[in-house]
């Protein structure tokens, strides 16, 4: 850690706490003494010194949109380069997928994809590509349905470029160079095929590929080619044949209410994951498709299944049960609205859910199975 709590950087940003560590950088929660607000301060990790950090900050600063974390300041103090961004209370999507979600139900997936698409559209509109779009570069608010979704780390794409180029080169010589901590390995599942040929010439279509891969990950619970080194092999094969084969999630079609939405989302995934960059949708087209989707973006709560199945007084049972809501209260749910990729409801499972009116208890729709901590 470069900074300690209490330090004041550039005479303006007082470090409150170390927030988290990304592949290339450290993030601190700071208090901006001039404007009296909490901000995120990002600085390259110890040992990574690169002029491109400022270049990246400048790229990010050009995109001002609700779905892109606002770049507020860039300061250099001694050897330290710091990017100041708006602070988003929550976790990045990569961490959410690792700790909260096995996958997302179609409505929640549509909401996340729609917001990411808007961010990409805003960037492309001013001629900026992200080029390292992946779940860990997308910030989400901590609430159940991720009310706030913002792309971040435009800077890191640029900073990572040299590292990635070097890693790709090393990998070509020796396939054993990849370690789980490598920057490349984190990017691989979302990296467009053309990036492998020539990273620096990859442009806007690479962001669209990444969006398709992320959308696929949200629905399938894993990236289109899986993770790790296996993904590289599969990607190479796909590139050779010129097409990719994707199997839609097995749970598709088991909920009538989202059957159409599932098809539309999967078709969107396909239109983004085209080997030929020319054939992919443009950001504007992705946004248009998202704007035509019918889905529910209602707020969600979280809780734990407390009763299942429901027992009638006469001894019979119903495929329904009750969830005890985090923060208090109890709600009713029915199996038909349980999104779990085939897992049966069980007492103790963590879930998130929308709430609708009901009697004697409110009822949930939809209910999404979460990972248990």
């Amino acid at each position, binding site marked *: 850690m470069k900074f300690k709590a209490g330090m004041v950087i550039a005479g303006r940003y007082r470090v409150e706490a170390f927030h988290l560590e990304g592949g290339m950088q450290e993030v601190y929660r700071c208090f901006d003494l001039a404007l009296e607000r909490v901000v995120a301060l990002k600085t390259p990790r110890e040992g990574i010194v690169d002029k491109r950090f400022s270049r990246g900050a400048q790229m990010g600063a050009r995109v001002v949109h609700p779905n892109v974390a606002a770049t507020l300041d860039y300061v250099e103090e001694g050897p330290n380069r710091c990017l100041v961004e708006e602070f988003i209370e929550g976790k990045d999507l990569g961490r959410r997928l690792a700790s909260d979600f096995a996958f997302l139900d179609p409505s929640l997936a549509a909401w996340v994809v729609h917001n990411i698409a808007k961010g990409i559209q805003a960037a492309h509109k001013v001629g900026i590509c992200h080029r390292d779009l992946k779940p860990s570069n997308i910030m989400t608010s901590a609430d159940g349905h991720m009310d706030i979704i913002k792309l971040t780390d435009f800077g890191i794409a640029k900073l990572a470029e040299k590292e990635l180029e070097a890693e790709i080169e090393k990998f070509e010589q020796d396939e054993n160079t990849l370690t789980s901590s490598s920057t490349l390995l984190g990017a691989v599942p979302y990296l467009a095929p053309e990036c492998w040929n020539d990273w620096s010439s990859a442009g806007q279509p690479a962001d669209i590929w990444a969006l398709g891969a992320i959308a696929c990950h949200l629905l399938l619970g894993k990236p289109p080619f899986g993770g790790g080194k296996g993904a590289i092999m599969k990607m190479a094969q796909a590139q050779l044949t010129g097409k990719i084969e994707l199997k839609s999630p097995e749970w598709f079609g088991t909920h009538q209410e989202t059957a159409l*939405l599932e098809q539309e989302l999967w078709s969107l995934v396909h239109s983004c994951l085209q080997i030929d960059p020319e054939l992919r949708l443009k950001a504007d087209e992705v946004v248009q498709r998202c704007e035509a989707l019918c*889905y529910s973006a209602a707020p969600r709560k979280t809780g734990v299944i407390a009763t299942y199945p429901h027992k009638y007084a006469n001894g019979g049972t119903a495929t329904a049960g009750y969830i005890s809501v985090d923060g208090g209260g109890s709600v009713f749910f029915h199996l038909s609205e349980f999104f779990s990729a085939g897992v049966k409801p069980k007492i103790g499972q963590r879930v998130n859910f929308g709430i609708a009116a009901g009697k004697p208890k409110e009822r949930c729709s939809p209910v999404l199975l979460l990972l248990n901590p």
Partner: protein
Amino acid sequence: MKLPQRYKTLTKSVLAGGFGTVIPLEDTFLRRVVLLKVMQDTANNAQLQNELKGLCKARSRHVVEVYDVILNDNGEITGVVIERLRGRDFSAFHKEAESNPQLYIKILYQLACALRDLHAVGIVHRDLKLDNFKESAAGVVKLFDFGISSSDGGYQTKQNKGTLIYAAPELYVPGATITPEMDIYALGVCAWALAHPKFPTQLLEMPPQTSGRASSISTVMPTADKQADGLHKEVIDILYACLDPQPKNRPSADQISSVLARHLSRNKHRGLFVQGMHKVFELSAKQPSVTLKIGTLGQLKVTYDGLRFSIAEVDGSVSINNVPAEPGNVLHEACVLGFGDTSLGSSRQWVTFFSSHPEVVI
């Protein structure tokens, strides 16, 4: 005024703005053009402080970003560096309003959201007007001039600095207390300014509407009964209510934003009836009415009016989420319709209803 080295002035020209001066600058650290706002009269610096607090306190996607402050040698704030909005302004929007009522609603929706976000943290803008909002390059409508915003709701104003036409009638009373309802009134005036080059004469009176209420926006904007995408009565009514001379009769910004949001999806909803694993029926603007009949258990007629799905007729024993259905009931996003009396136990039949619509992500 001495600027920190990171900022380079771009032009000698100065943009007119509320009570201060607005100067475009290049931020050489981030290589972007920003705006510097300084008070013409340094005695107004307290106002600049106020503006700053307002802007920083309200994290709204419909309010400009603040980046920096310029201090003098005594550590007092003399200037604020804010986001430059590069999108369109709305001074000539009235020319296209009539042919694009949906865009008209979308602009007002975003203004209502800005006020909702400000009012939620106790800030009254106090200077909402046509010249004080603009689109960003990404097409988001944002408020930018906070010259006289007050974070103190109980502030007693001696000088009313709001532009006159936008000033609510209660501001004409000496020592008027600044309230959020005054912003709502100004939003109602913005609705006129966006729709038409001329204000109704009653709004120009001082105090406004002394001789009677100004007519509703429906006199200059197409209405839904005449034009498919025209303004619906609910929109017309809520905009009319914004201009109510009685502050307590005006809707809140939260109410306005949710009504306008609903109207951004008008005629685009999809209502789905599902029984077991089968889709029974889909309601939409194309198929706005259906009667569901299950044997002798019960019968239900549901209609879609472009905004809501509601029960038109009930026959026999039908419940919505275990509450007996009655004509006029609205079917919410997801609900279970039970057919048959509770005494039937497991012989009752169940149909689930789901509605959704395209989500508006600005």
